[in-house]
C-alpha cells in the first residue's frame, strides 16, 4: 500500500507539535478572516502570505500554516453568508440561498452546525480523493513536453472565465492583461530588459504577491469606502447551539452526491469552488423537486453548496499540485505560495519532495478535524467577529497588507504598485472583469511563453509540432470547447440571483 506508507510519512511531519500548533493557529486565523464580511479565502490568504514569509518559516511549516488559513477561511465564509446574507467570497454565495432563510426562521444555530458538518464532509472526502487521484495524474503528467504544457496553460486561461464570468471577452482580456504584465522584466532567454519603459524598478518584473495584495485586498477596501461601510447589521440572535442529528442524517445522500460533483468540478481546470457549489445546489434542487422547499431554509439546501464548495477546494488542489495549473482563485494564491517557497508544482513534486506533498495532505486532514471542533462547539466566538465595524477592520487590513509587502521587499516602489493594482482591481471589478485570471496570467504567463519557445526550439520553428501528440491535440480541443461552451450553456442555465444580499 503505497498510499498508506506515504500517508504515514505525511503524518510523521504534520503531527510534530510545532506543525500541529501552526495548523491550529492557521485554522483559527482563517476562520476569523473567512467570517469577516467581505473577506474570503483568496484575499485572506493573500494578506497573510507576505507576513508568513517574513517570519522565515521553512517550506513545510509555511505551507501548513497557509493551507490551514485557506481551509479555515472556506469554513468561516459560511458564517457571514448565513447570519448576514453577505457572502465573503463567490463560492459562499450559494450558501446564502438556504442558510440565511433558516437563520431568519429562528434556527441560526442549526444552520451553522449543518453547514459546518457539511464543510467537514466535503473537505475530508475530497482530500481522500486527492490522495488517490493526484499520483495517477502526476504519472500522466510525466509525458508532458513543452507543447503539451503550452496547450494546458491555454486550456486553463480559456476555461477560467467559465460559467462564473458573464462576458467571455472580459474574462479573456483579464487573462491577457495578466500575461502582458508577466512579460515585463528581463527576458529569460536573452537576458535583456523588455517592456520596462526604462524603469529600473521593473527589471525584476512585477512581483505577483504585490499584484495579489493589490487586486484582492486593497480593491476590497475601496469598495468599502464607496459603500461607506454600510453593511447588514447582525439582527439574528444566536442562542444555544445544538446538533440536529436527525436532520444531519437526512442529508447523508445529498452530502455523498455533492462531494463527488464538487470534487470533479474542482479538478476541472478553471472551474473551481464557485462552479462546485453552484452545480451541487442546482442538482440537489432538481432531485428534491418542488416539494423539497429549496430556498426557504431546508437542511439539504445548506448542505449541498457547502459540501460542494469544500469538495471543490480539495479537488482544485489536484491540477495545482500535479500540473502546476490552479483551478480557482484560491489555488492560484496557493500556487503563488509554493512558487515563493521555491517549490515547483508538477509531476516531479511527488517524487522529489514527497515530504511537502504528503505533509500537506496530512495537515489538510488534521486541519479538517480541528476546524470541525472550532466551528461546531466554538462557533459563538466567531460570530462575535461580525460585530467588528468596517471602519476599524478595513484600515487594519490595508496596513497589514502594506507592511507585509514592505517587510518582504523593502521597496517603496512595490507599495506604489500595490496602490496601482488596488485601483486597477476596483475599476475591473466595477466593470465586471474578473480579477482571478489577471493573477493567473501574472503567475503563469512567463512559463507559458517559455514552453512555447522551448517547443519552437525543439522543432526548429515548425508550428505543427504543437499539434504532434494526442495529448496536446486533446488539450487544444478542450481549450476551444471550454471557451465556446459557456456562451451556449449560459443561456440554458441561469444563476439564481440573491434576493436582497450584495451578491457580487
Amino acid at each position, binding site marked *: 500500500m503505497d498510499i498508506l506508507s506515504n500517508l504515514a510519512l505525511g503524518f510523521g511531519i504534520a503531527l510534530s507539535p510545532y506543525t500541529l500548533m501552526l495548523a491550529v493557529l492557521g485554522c483559527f486565523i482563517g476562520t476569523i478572516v473567512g467570517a469577516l464580511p467581505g473577506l474570503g479565502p483568496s484575499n485572506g490568504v493573500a494578506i497573510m502570505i507576505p507576513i508568513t514569509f517574513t*517570519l522565515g518559516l521553512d517550506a513545510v511549516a509555511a505551507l501548513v500554516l497557509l493551507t490551514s488559513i485557506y481551509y479555515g477561511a472556506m469554513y468561516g465564509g459560511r458564517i457571514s453568508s448565513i447570519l448576514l446574507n453577505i457572502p465573503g467570497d463567490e463560492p459562499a454565495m450559494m450558501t446564502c440561498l438556504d442558510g440565511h432563510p433558516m437563520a431568519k426562521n429562528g434556527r441560526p444555530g442549526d444552520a451553522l452546525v449543518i453547514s459546518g458538518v457539511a464543510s467537514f464532509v466535503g473537505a475530508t472526502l475530497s482530500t481522500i480523493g486527492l490522495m488517490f487521484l493526484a499520483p495517477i495524474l502526476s504519472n500522466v503528467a510525466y509525458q508532458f513536453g513543452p507543447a503539451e504544457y503550452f496547450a494546458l496553460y491555454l486550456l486553463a486561461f480559456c476555461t477560467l472565465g467559465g460559467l462564473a464570468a*458573464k*462576458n467571455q*471577452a*472580459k474574462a*479573456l*482580456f483579464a487573462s*491577457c*492583461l495578466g*500575461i*502582458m504584465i508577466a*512579460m515585463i522584466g528581463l*527576458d529569460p*532567454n*536573452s*537576458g*535583456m530588459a*523588455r*517592456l520596462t*519603459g526604462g524603469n529600473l524598478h521593473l527589471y525584476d518584473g512585477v512581483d505577483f504577491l504585490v499584484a495579489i495584495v493589490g487586486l484582492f485586498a486593497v480593491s476590497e*477596501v*475601496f469598495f*468599502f*469606502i*464607496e459603500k*461607506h*461601510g454600510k453593511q447588514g447589521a447582525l439582527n439574528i440572535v444566536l442562542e444555544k447551539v445544538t446538533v440536529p442529528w436527525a436532520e444531519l442524517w437526512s442529508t447523508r445522500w445529498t452530502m455523498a452526491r455533492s462531494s463527488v460533483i464538487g470534487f470533479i468540478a474542482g479538478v476541472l481546470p478553471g472551474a473551481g469552488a464557485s462552479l462546485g457549489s453552484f452545480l451541487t445546489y442546482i442538482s440537489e434542487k432538481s432531485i428534491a423537486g418542488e416539494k423539497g422547499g429549496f430556498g426557504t431554509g431546508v437542511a439539504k439546501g445548506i448542505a449541498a453548496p457547502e459540501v460542494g464548495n469544500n469538495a471543490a477546494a480539495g479537488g482544485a488542489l489536484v491540477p495545482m499540485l500535479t500540473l502546476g495549473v490552479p483551478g480557482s482563485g484560491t489555488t492560484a494564491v496557493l500556487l503563488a505560495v509554493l512558487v515563493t517557497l521555491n517549490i515547483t508544482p508538477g509531476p516531479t513534486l511527488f517524487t522529489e519532495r514527497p515530504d511537502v506533498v504528503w505533509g500537506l495532505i496530512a495537515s489538510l486532514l488534521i486541519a479538517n478535524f480541528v476546524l470541525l471542533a472550532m466551528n461546531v462547539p466554538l462557533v459563538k466566538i466567531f460570530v462575535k467577529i461580525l460585530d467588528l465595524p*468596517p*471602519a*476599524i477592520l*478595513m*484600515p*487594519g487590513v*490595508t*496596513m*497589514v497588507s*502594506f*507592511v507585509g509587502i*514592505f*517587510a518582504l521587499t523593502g521597496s*517603496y516602489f512595490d*507599495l*506604489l504598485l*500595490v*496602490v496601482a493594482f*488596488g*485601483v486597477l482591481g*476596483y475599476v475591473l471589478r*466595477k*466593470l*465586471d472583469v474578473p480579477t482571478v485570471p489577471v493573477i493567473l496570467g501574472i503567475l503563469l*504567463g512567463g512559463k*507559458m*511563453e517559455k514552453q*512555447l*519557445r522551448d517547443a*519552437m*526550439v525543439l522543432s*526548429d*520553428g515548425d508550428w505543427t509540432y504543437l499539434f504532434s501528440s494526442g495529448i496536446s491535440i486533446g488539450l487544444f480541443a478542450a481549450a476551444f470547447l471550454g471557451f465556446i461552451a459557456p456562451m451556449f450553456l449560459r443561456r440554458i442555465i441561469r444563476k439564481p440571483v440573491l434576493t436582497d444580499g450584495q451578491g457580487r
Partner: protein
Amino acid sequence: MLSSDRVFGAIVIIGSLAYVASAAQIAAPFFSDPLGSKAFPMGVGLVAALCGVMMILSPDDDPDWPPLRALGALVISTVLLVGYAYALKPLGFLIPTAIASAVLSYQINPRPLPALLTGLGLSIGLYLLFRYILGLSLFGFPRDWF
C-alpha cells in the same frame, strides 16, 4: 450610446496596441531562439485588443458608478495611500500609519473621534504586533530622532 464598456473597450484597444508597438521595439539579440522575444507579447497584445473590440460591439449594462462624493473619497484614499508608500521608509512606521488609518477610517465612517482613536490604536497595536511578536525589523520613528 456611450456606455462604460465601450469607453473601457476603447481604452483596452489603445493600451493593447501601444503594448504591441512597444513589444515590436524590443531589440533582437545576436543569438535568438526561433520565436524570439517579441512574438509572444505581441500576440497576447493583439488578442487583448480583439477583446476590446468585442467589448465595444456587445457592451454589458452599465455598473452603478458611485456618486461624485464617494468618488472624491476614493481619490483622497488613493492619494493618501500613495503618500503612505513614500512616507513609510523615511518617517518610520508609527506616524504615517496613524495618519493613514485614521483618514481611511474616516472615509468609511465619517466620525472624527472614533477615526482618530482607530488610527492611534491600529498604529500602536500593529507596531507592537509586528515588531515584538512577529519580529519584523520595522522602525517606529524617523531614524535620526533617537
